[in-house]
């Protein structure tokens, strides 16, 4: 098979699918595009978001009751920016009405620019870098940002009244940025900070923890990494038992999965969390979300699913609103999104000029026994925080 025949087939395929989708649009069916990492080093988080997107589609279709129908066309970007761009372009050529997905600021950057070129709205919860919303893209939206995570972590640490904090962080893009943010915030508040940067391939954290224990002697330990890093750090801490009063992490930590799979290890550990676990239902949407998620995937929803769900739900609402007014385009959907104010699973969402959600502030949860309780901010708390308390 020569290159040309391959390309010809591709071209034929694209023409065919464009026709097919064109026909479908008249039957009030909208296809959303989703470019997410299902393989590569972001596979885990991408898959989580993807599940949330699927739940949003299922719930929306049920609610809309045949008036409109939504489908999602998903392409794995393999955690690679070039492939993410190609994925967006392919989805655009298939005639999707908007895009939901994306993980990693470095991948979302070029992908959302490609979306803008095709006049498609791109909404995500996977990229928290500040630069993303300073690119003058009218079609880019995100429901969370690093300030939201950082504010929550800082707020908790400040409320604890700790004097000295050891920050242990992975030298990846998002974790590195977050660590800098937390470090500066703490210093401004007059808290003494030491930092320990580690490589993503590190598995034995005893050396770092020993420095925290013998040299830093800090009141609190802040971890900024991913699940495998947390497990490694917590295991090292459990063995070495530094005299800290609290150990705090960010994403991927105060989750039901960590609570069940690493139960003893994570006791009293804090992490960002939107909902307590088991979910204490507040409002119909959360109840239904949780039920649908369990039905579809046979497990408790986690934060990735929640974010994926919320971003997609908002997008669907905007598409429906635009359709009801007569025209679905990048411009109209963006307009709808910008004018919307919603109370969602992750709190109030309203987008500013840049497509950012300034309302976004995370909550901090704490593993307490079989539960993850929300302990910060006070007004959202479902339980008192155990402090001082560590897993060991």
């Amino acid at each position, binding site marked *: 098979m020569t290159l040309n025949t391959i390309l010809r087939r591709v071209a034929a395929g694209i023409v065919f699918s464009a026709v097919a989708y064109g026909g479908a649009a008249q039957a009030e069916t909208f296809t959303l595009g989703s470019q997410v990492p299902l*393989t590569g080093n972001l596979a*885990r988080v991408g898959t989580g978001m993807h599940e949330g997107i699927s739940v949003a589609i299922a719930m929306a279709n049920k609610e809309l009751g045949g008036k409109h129908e939504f489908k999602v066309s998903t392409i794995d970007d393999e955690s690679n920016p070039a492939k993410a761009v190609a994925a967006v372009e392919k989805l655009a050529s298939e005639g999707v009405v908007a895009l939901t997905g994306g993980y990693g600021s470095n991948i979302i950057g070029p992908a959302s620019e490609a979306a803008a070129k095709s006049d498609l709205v791109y909404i995500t919860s996977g990229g928290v870098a500040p630069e993303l919303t300073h690119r003058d893209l009218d079609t880019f939206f995100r429901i969370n940002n690093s300030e939201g995570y950082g504010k929550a972590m800082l707020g908790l640490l400040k409320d604890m009244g700790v004097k000295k904090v050891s920050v242990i962080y992975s*030298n990846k893009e998002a974790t590195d940025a977050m660590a800098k943010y937390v470090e500066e915030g703490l210093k401004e508040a007059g808290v003494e900070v030491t930092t320990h*940067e*580690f*490589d993503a391939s590190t598995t034995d954290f005893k050396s770092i923890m*020993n420095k925290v224990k*013998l040299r830093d002697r800090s009141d609190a330990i802040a971890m900024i990494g991913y699940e495998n890093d947390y497990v490694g750090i917590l*295991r090292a801490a459990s063995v070495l038992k530094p005299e800290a009063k609290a150990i705090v992490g960010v994403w991927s930590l105060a989750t039901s999965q960590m609570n069940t799979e690493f139960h003893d290890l994570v006791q009293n550990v804090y992490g960002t969390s939107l909902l307590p676990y088991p979910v204490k239902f507040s409002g119909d949407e959360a109840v239904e979300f949780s039920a649908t998620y369990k039905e579809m995937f046979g497990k408790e929803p986690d934060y990735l699913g929640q974010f994926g769900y919320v971003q997609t739900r908002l997008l669907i609402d905007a598409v429906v609103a635009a359709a009801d007014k007569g025209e679905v385009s990048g411009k109209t959907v963006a307009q709808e999104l910008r004018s919307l104010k919603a109370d969602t699973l992750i709190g109030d969402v309203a987008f500013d000029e840049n497509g950012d959600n300034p309302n976004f502030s995370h909550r901090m949860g704490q593993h307490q026994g079989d539960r993850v309780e929300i302990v910060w901010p006070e007004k959202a708390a479902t339980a008192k925080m155990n402090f001082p308390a560590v897993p060991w």
Partner: protein
Amino acid sequence: MFELTLQAVYSGLLAGGWYAMVALGLALVFGTMRIINLAHGELVLLAAYVAFEMERSFGLNPIAAIPVALVVVGLTALLVYFLIGRIRHDRELNSLILTFGIAIVLTNVILMTWSADIRSTSVGWFMDGAVIADTLFSMNSEVLFFGAGVALVGGTYWWLNHTWHGRALRAVSSNRNAAMLMGVNPARVEAMSFVVSAVLATVSGVALYTASVVFPALGHGLTIKAFVITVLAGLGSVPGVLLGAVILGVGETMTATFAKPSLQELTGMVIFLLILFLRPSGLFGRKVVGK
């Protein structure tokens, strides 16, 4: 300061015992066949996942899962051996590309079978602290598998020197043609080196599963570490593997303690290149690197 150093050396030592187990499997095959099995790390990882599956499905203790893992890893290793045997031309380099391909296949098979989630044992005992004199800290699993590592490396050493199979293997390793003249069937010896390598991979994989967390992308890094140690040791030196592994382990923990933890990987790579350039025969072995 003193306490930090002591703990760094201790942690490095324990890591070294485990590294030695991983590396010896690679070094053994390398010694007999002059082939670097780039899928070795994936074999280690495969054992870890088999232990995980046994624990998840049947509630089996990871130690008890070793026989099952051994069968799976052993058969996979023999398949690798069989495929290498089919290379016709320039075996030394082509086997590198072949096993590289096999490593990619295994990584993706693991990913598709067990997903990208992180996995670790939930048997609490492995993670409990083992403290010596209030100054040296580790987890039970680390001490256990350090012991297992030293015992296995020692056992392999004994086996190579005191059994006929072992001697045959050494004979093939030092001079294939001469060994053939002595009536040794090199094909069988090579297959045997793969089996022994699989045993080592299995135990080290289970150790990994109990002491750390596993995820599909881990295998490649393990192979590289094992190769670094093999070069450090020099060809045909079993004690060299153990010592090389400890040097790497301690070098890493010392870097993490006294420089920056993020430079830990760099230490290994720099030691590796220095040995290659300055002392290509390794620290202890026969010459492994031709001009």
